[in-house]
C-alpha cells in the first residue's frame, strides 16, 4: 500500500502463484492415485479376471466375474425402481410445481442425496433383510435405488425446466392432452440432458460399497438369484484390499481399474450427450 502500484502488482502476482500452487496441490494426489490404479491394474488384469470367480484362499489366479455380474443385476434392479420414481417426480416438480411443496421436495432430495450411504444400507436392512430373513441382491438393489432417486429427480427437473414454454403451448394448442405433451414433447426434447443425469446416477451407484455391506452381503460364488446374497464388484475390491494376501491385492487393483474405467466411460458419455445438446 505504501509503495503504491509496484507493491500491489507484486502482491497480485504472489497471490496468483499461491492459487496456482493450491490447484497443483489438489491435482497431484489425485493424479498419483489415478496413475497408480492404471499401473497396478494393467499389470494384474487378465482374461481370467472377466471369466472366473475368486480362487479359494491362498490359491493364485481367479477373477471377479461374479462380482461384475452381481453389480450389473443390482444396478439394473435399482434403475427399474429408481428411474420411474425420479423422472415422474421431476415432471411433477417442473410441470405442476411452483408451490411451497415443490421447494420442500427439492430440499428433501438435496438433503437425502447428502445422507451417508451406509445409513441407506441400514434402512434397507431393517425393511427387507430382517423380514425376508436373509441378505439378498434385492435388498441391495433397493438400497442403491434410494441413492439414485434424488440424483435423477434433481437433474431431470433441471433439464425439463430448460425446455421453452412455447413448445408446450404449441403442443397444447394442437389439442394434445397435457400428459402426452409432458411425456412426448417436454420430456423428449430434454432427453439428452435427462440421459446425462441417468448416466451420472448409474456411475455413482456402480461404485457404492457401504449400502451393500448389510444388504447384498457379497458372495464367493456365482450368484444370479436376487433372493440370495449377491456378489458385487466394489464389495470384492473392499474385502480383497483388506485381506493379507498379495494375490488378492492384485485382484483388487484389477477390479479398481475396471470400476474406474466404467465410471469414466459413463461420465464421458454423459458429457458427450450434454455437449451435443448444447450444440443444437
Amino acid at each position, binding site marked *: 500500500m505504501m509503495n503504491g502500484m509496484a507493491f500491489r502488482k507484486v*502482491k*497480485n502476482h504472489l*497471490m*496468483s502463484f499461491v492459487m*496456482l*500452487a*493450491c*490447484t497443483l*496441490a*489438489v*491435482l497431484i*494426489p*489425485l493424479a498419483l*492415485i489415478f496413475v497408480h490404479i492404471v499401473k497396478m491394474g494393467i499389470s494384474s488384469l487378465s482374461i481370467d479376471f472377466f471369466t472366473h470367480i475368486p480362487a479359494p484362499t491362498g490359491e493364485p489366479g481367479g477373477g471377479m466375474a461374479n462380482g461384475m455380474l452381481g453389480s450389473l443385476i443390482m444396478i439394473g434392479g435399482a434403475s427399474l425402481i429408481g428411474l420411474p420414481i*425420479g423422472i*415422474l*417426480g*421431476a*415432471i411433477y416438480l417442473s*410441470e*405442476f410445481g*411452483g408451490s411451497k411443496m*415443490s421447494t420442500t421436495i427439492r*430440499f*428433501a432430495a438435496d438433503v437425502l442425496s*447428502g*445422507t*451417508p450411504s*451406509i*445409513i*441407506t444400507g*441400514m*434402512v434397507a436392512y*431393517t*425393511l427387507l433383510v430382517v423380514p425376508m430373513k436373509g441378505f439378498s441382491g434385492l435388498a441391495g438393489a433397493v438400497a442403491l435405488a434410494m441413492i439414485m432417486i434424488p440424483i435423477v*429427480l434433481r437433474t431431470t427437473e433441471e433439464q425439463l*425446466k430448460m425446455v421453452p414454454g412455447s413448445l408446450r403451448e404449441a403442443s397444447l394448442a394442437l389439442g394434445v392432452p*397435457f*400428459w402426452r405433451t409432458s411425456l412426448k414433447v417436454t420430456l423428449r426434447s430434454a432427453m439428452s440432458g435427462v440421459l446425462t443425469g441417468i448416466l451420472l446416477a448409474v*456411475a455413482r451407484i*456402480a*461404485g457404492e*460399497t*457401504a449400502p451393500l*455391506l*448389510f444388504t447384498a*452381503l457379497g458372495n464367493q460364488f456365482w450368484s444370479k438369484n436376487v433372493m440370495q446374497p449377491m456378489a458385487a464388484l*466394489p464389495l470384492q475390491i*473392499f474385502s480383497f*484390499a*483388506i485381506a493379507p494376501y498379495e494375490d488378492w*491385492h492384485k485382484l*483388487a*487393483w484389477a477390479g*479398481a481399474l475396471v*470400476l*474406474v474405467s466404467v*465410471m469414466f466411460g459413463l*461420465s464421458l458419455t454423459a*458429457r458427450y450427450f450434454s455437449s451435443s445438446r448444447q450444440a443444437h
Partner: protein
Amino acid sequence: MNSDVRSSYCGSETEKDVAPATTKTREPDTAKRLNGDAVFRYLTTFFAFSILAILALMLYEMAGESMPAIKAFGWKFVSSKDWDAVQETFGALPYLYGSVVSSVLALLLATPLSIGAALFITEIAPGRLGSIVAPLVELLAAIPSVIYGLWGVLVMAPWLQTTVQPFLIEHFGFIPFFEGAPYGVSMLAAIFILMIMVVPIITSITREVLLAVPQSQKEAAIALGATRWETIKVAILPYGKSGILGAAILGLGRAIGETMAVTMVIGNAPNISLSLLSPAYTMPSVIANEFAEATTKLHSSALMEIGLILMVVTLIVNALARLLIWSVSREAKGGAA
C-alpha cells in the same frame, strides 16, 4: 418466471377439466383424455412425494430401531467410552471423537486448498486451461470411496509408516499430537484420505458459486483500478462468502459420513488419544465393521443409534449447506433479472 406461467396455465387447465367432466354433454374421447391428465397428475404427485416419504421412513426406522439402546443407556451412550458386546454395555464416545476430529481436521486442510484452486480455475487460468481442469476435478470427485481406500491402505499407509510418521516422531515427538509408534493406519491417514476426497467436491461447488458472481461486481472493482487479486478480495469473495461456506459445510457432511475409505485406513481401534499417529475409529466405520455380525438385539440397536446420530448430524449439516448455497444462486438470479 417461466414456471409461474406454466403452472398457471396447467392449473387453469385442470380446474376446467375437473368441473365439466361430471357433466354428460362431454364427448367420450374428451372425457378419457381428461382422465389421462388427472391420472398423470396424481401419478407424478405421488412419486414426487415419495421423496418425502423415503426421508421420513428412514428417520422413523432408524429412530425405532435405536429405541432399545436409547432406553438402556440414555445420555450415557454419548459420554461413555465402554463398548463391550459381551458385557452388553455400549458407549459411543470414541467413535464420536474419531468422526469429529478426522472430518474437522480434514476440512481445515481441504478448504483453503479448494478455494485457491476454484479461484485459479475461474479467475486466473487462461480460458482453455480452466475448462480442462474443471471437468477433470469433477471426474475425480466421482471416484468411488472404496478405490480411495484401496490406495490408502496399500500405498499411502505404508508410506506414512516408513517415511512421514518416523520423521514426525523424530522432530516433533515432543508435541502430544505426534507421539507414539508409527503404525501407518492411523488418525493421520484418515485425515489425509478424507482431505484428498473432499477437495474435489468443495472445489467444484465453490467454482459454481464463483461463476454465479455477477460480472458487474467484478467490472466495478476493475473500473476502480483494482488488480486481479484485489478484485477477488473486494468483489468476488465477499459476494460468494456464504456460498463458499456452504460448499465447505457440504464437504464436512461428506467427510463425516464417509465410510469405506476411512474404515480401511484409520486402524479401527476405539482410542481417544491426542496423538494423530494412533489408530482410531469413526461412527460409520464401527457400523460397517460390526453391524452384519451384531448378534444381540442391544448391540445392533446401539449401532442403529450411532447411525441415527450420524443421520441427524448430516441432515443438519446438509440442510445448512444447501440453504447457504441456494442463497447465493438465488441472489445471482435476482440480480440478473
